[in-house]
């Protein structure tokens, strides 16, 4: 603490004032809400934008580009540009929101986030390496890119998130992860169109429900 010029003036500021208990309760409530909002690395709005952007429009674009294919020939290039563009925008927006929320915060939680980041990276890279291996072993494009691509890496990432939330006893977030795993798993029964379409729509609905539940919880808190 380097600035001490107004310390003496501050020493008496607010000291000994007859603070009304009702006013104190109001201050307590406001400070709690403000702190929760400012420290929240995943504000509901960001979750909604991510859900709508990546799953509805990104997966939706890929589904749309293939929906009239009689024989699978893969998604159109423009749809992949839309998908990966939205993933990039969502990742950057999430990273900026997370950095803002955790600015000035250090300690155990920061170290945990770094370890969790490594776990997510390992799960994602592992899933994508297997995708490459499947193609290398001669599995069809339809399975490798049409069914495996939109679902298995997502399931791997959601499984890591589910484990983290289970340890933390964050039941709402755990439910979201299980919901995503369930939607992505079931959608594989419906081929490439189902994998992209149902995963996109289902995960979007799961995340929108999550954002709504978060907002309700914040208002009640």
């Amino acid at each position, binding site marked *: *603490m*380097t*600035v*001490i*010029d*107004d*310390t*003496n*003036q*501050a*020493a008496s*500021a*607010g*000291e*000994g*004032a*007859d*603070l009304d*208990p*009702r*006013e*104190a*309760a109001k*201050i*307590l409530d406001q*400070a*709690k809400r*403000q*702190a*929760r909002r*400012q*420290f929240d690395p995943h504000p509901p709005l960001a979750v909604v934008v991510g859900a709508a952007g990546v799953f509805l429009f990104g997966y939706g674009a890929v589904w749309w580009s293939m929906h009239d294919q009689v024989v699978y020939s893969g998604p159109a290039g423009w749809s992949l540009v839309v998908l990966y563009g939205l993933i990039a925008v969502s990742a950057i927006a999430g990273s900026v929101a997370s950095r803002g929320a955790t*600015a*000035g*915060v*250090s*300690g*155990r*939680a*920061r170290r945990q986030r770094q370890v969790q980041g490594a776990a997510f990276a390992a799960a994602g890279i592992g899933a994508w390496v297997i995708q490459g291996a499947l193609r290398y072993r001669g599995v069809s494009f339809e399975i490798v890119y049409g069914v495996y691509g939109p679902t298995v890496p997502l399931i791997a990432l959601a499984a890591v998130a589910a484990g983290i939330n289970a340890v933390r006893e964050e039941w709402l977030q755990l439910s979201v992860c299980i919901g995503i795993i369930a939607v992505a798993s079931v959608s594989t029964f419906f081929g490439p169109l189902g994998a992209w379409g149902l995963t996109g729509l289902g995960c979007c609905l799961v995340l929108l429900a999550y954002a709504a539940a978060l907002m309700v919880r914040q208002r009640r808190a």
Partner: protein
Amino acid sequence: MKGSSMTTNTLEPLDPLIHVPARLRILVTLAALNEGDTLSFTRLQNMLDLTPGNLITHLRKLEDAGYIKSEKTWDGNGLATSVTLTIRGRAALEAYTEALRNLLGGLTP
């Protein structure tokens, strides 16, 4: 606490060290972090919109009572101060909140 004897009796269970707007906001803000996490002086100051001197004064009082702990670390540009809520401070805030709840429950509107 000043005021009538009734007011004095009513406010008696409220920890006088916490029952000050700025210090209440400091403790509530630090309590929103995970246990063991620290918050930089600059971020805390920005969040609470207090002058540095004012914040230092309140932090010293809370630290003297063992409610918070401050530490200085080298962040590359100079010494940076960060603060964390102690177990005692968290317990004191919980007790204060409970006392306030009881008090307001007993007060007629």
